[in-house]
């Protein structure tokens, strides 16, 4: 499918949705621009550009990702999503440990597993030291306060 056509459809949909969401926002308040003024201008321009993409698309086409690409993407997204989900409950330290352990220990790699486990420990300790202890960032903590 033509890339411009696909992008044009997506952008037109976004413009229409934002137009609907901003219909109650005032355009002018006592002769001055209101909250809906700037979004309306951008929405109008986005509609014009997306229609021009639909009507006169460039020749460049886009292909869908292959099955293998999608499987890798889903796996990566699954790991990241899992890390984000558990982070507020188990804290930054454990969720980081889980993220790195899943990726590095499950990989088929010439480096030995014990070496990779050591690497996980070093990176987790270093990131906790830098972000939490050195920079004092307020990252999520587990029930055990670490």
């Amino acid at each position, binding site marked *: 499918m033509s*890339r411009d056509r696909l992008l044009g459809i997506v952008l037109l949909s976004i413009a229409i949705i934002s137009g609907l969401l901003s219909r109650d926002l005032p355009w002018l308040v006592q002769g001055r621009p209101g909250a809906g003024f700037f979004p309306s201008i951008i929405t109008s321009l986005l509609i014009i550009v997306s229609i021009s993409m639909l009507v006169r698309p460039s020749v460049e086409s886009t292909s869908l990702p292959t099955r293998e690409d999608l499987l890798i993407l889903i796996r990566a997204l699954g790991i990241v999503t899992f890390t984000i989900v558990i*982070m507020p409950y188990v804290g930054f330290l454990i969720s980081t440990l889980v993220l790195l352990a899943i*990726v590095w220990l499950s990989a088929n790699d010439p480096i030995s597993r014990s070496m990779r486990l050591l690497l996980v420990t070093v990176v987790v300790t270093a990131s906790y030291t830098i972000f939490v202890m050195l920079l004092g960032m307020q990252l999520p903590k587990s029930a055990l306060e670490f």
Partner: protein
Amino acid sequence: MDALDGLRLGFDLIFTPAALLACLTGSFLGTLIGILPGVGTATTIAILLPLTFGRDPGLALIMFSGIYLGAQYGGSTTAILMNIPGESSSVITALDGYQLARQGRAGTALAIAAISSFVAGVIGLLGLAFLSPLVSKFALSFGPPEQFLLIAFALLMFCALTSARLSLSMVLLGLMIGTIGADPLQGEPRFTLNLVQLSEGIDFVIVAMGLLGLGEVLGNIRSQERSTLPLKFRDLFPRLEDVMQCKGTVLRSGVLGFILGALPGSGTTAASFVAYILEKRICKNGPKFGTGQVEGVAAPEGANNAAVAGAMVPMLTLGIPGSASTALMLAALIIGGVRPGPLLFAEHPTLVWTVIASLFVANVVLLILNLPLVPLFASLMRIRYLYLYPVIILFTIVGSYAINNDIFDVWMMLLFGVAGYVLRHMNVPLAPLVLGLVLGPLAETSLVQSLSISRGNPLIFFERPTSLTIIVAATTLLVILRFVAAWNKRKKVLLGNDES
């Protein structure tokens, strides 16, 4: 006291243990903040502001200036190595810097960033020392209408120089995302879907880390998991010819960055952006920008450092802060009992010249601090992608969480990461979207302010001499660009006909 005497006085005073310590601490902290996405310069200065109560305001300003300058140096590191801009002014640096790193020339990119930051930073400081009164007069004529026109034409020019319609659509999408949250004048919530987390809008760091950082990782996992970059030992260091190739770019970006930095509200981001556009147009390798050109790194990095010195001009001479960071520096001065304004140079020469001298020292310190680290940072690219990408993911998670200490922002980052993956797969440029988002709120505020001043009359953009000059200059440039593009197209067609 003339500028030379002032500088002499400043250099006499900066070499005291307390002033040097403040300068070194600020520079080091700033570099660290710049490297780490999510920890902004303004936030850091705000956190440290209470520490200045009851202390010498000069020392506070020296430290804060070091932080401000250091963040510009550090911001390029993650932009070049991971495609994650640490500061908004580094978004543009990522365009060519990351491409250079992908070609195994991370060392060159990092060194060019450090050297151009240093040279252009010194140009900016010379401007601050010698041209402050002149530039501050010009800055006073630069109000919201001029600011809006500058941003609008810069964005249009960027689109005209890249794949026009595609870039324009992404800029508009970025501007649209920038309207999420409270409107700048009345504070009315827009597009927040009744979510409290969206009431203050979406921070550009979240979008940049998702689209550019996570999106890049997701797109690269399959092709790069087993590979390392073809990085030779000598590629860890810059080549002299690369440095020499950038000399014109650095000088021009230094001057431009200083002038743009001095304009209230423009800040370092607009400076880096406009310098990149200018160089894309006039430098020899300009048409190849975006594919990994050293000038494409030198221009934004030089301009954003020179803009730091420029931003000091309205702050010190007029008491007008140009950005959130300079506003906090101004607060530090006021808390210390010093009133910035036209009389500051006459009433507090010691303070002003020590701060200016400290910026010179900070520039040298930052160059010394950054150049030896170049091979170390560049050698990160030798690590196999399998071991690099989970750390980049970790970085994006921490960076997005740190903005508001809210897991919602991490989910937003993930969402933009998926969008980044899809758009990247479709060969859609992502930098225009991030630029639209960064400059959008600034553009909206200045447009709304302009129309409020004129009570809704759009003629305000044509009635003021400076704004009219911007319109005429930018329109002429756009017409020339269009004409040159049409001419080149025609030439190609004619050549093609001749060959056939």
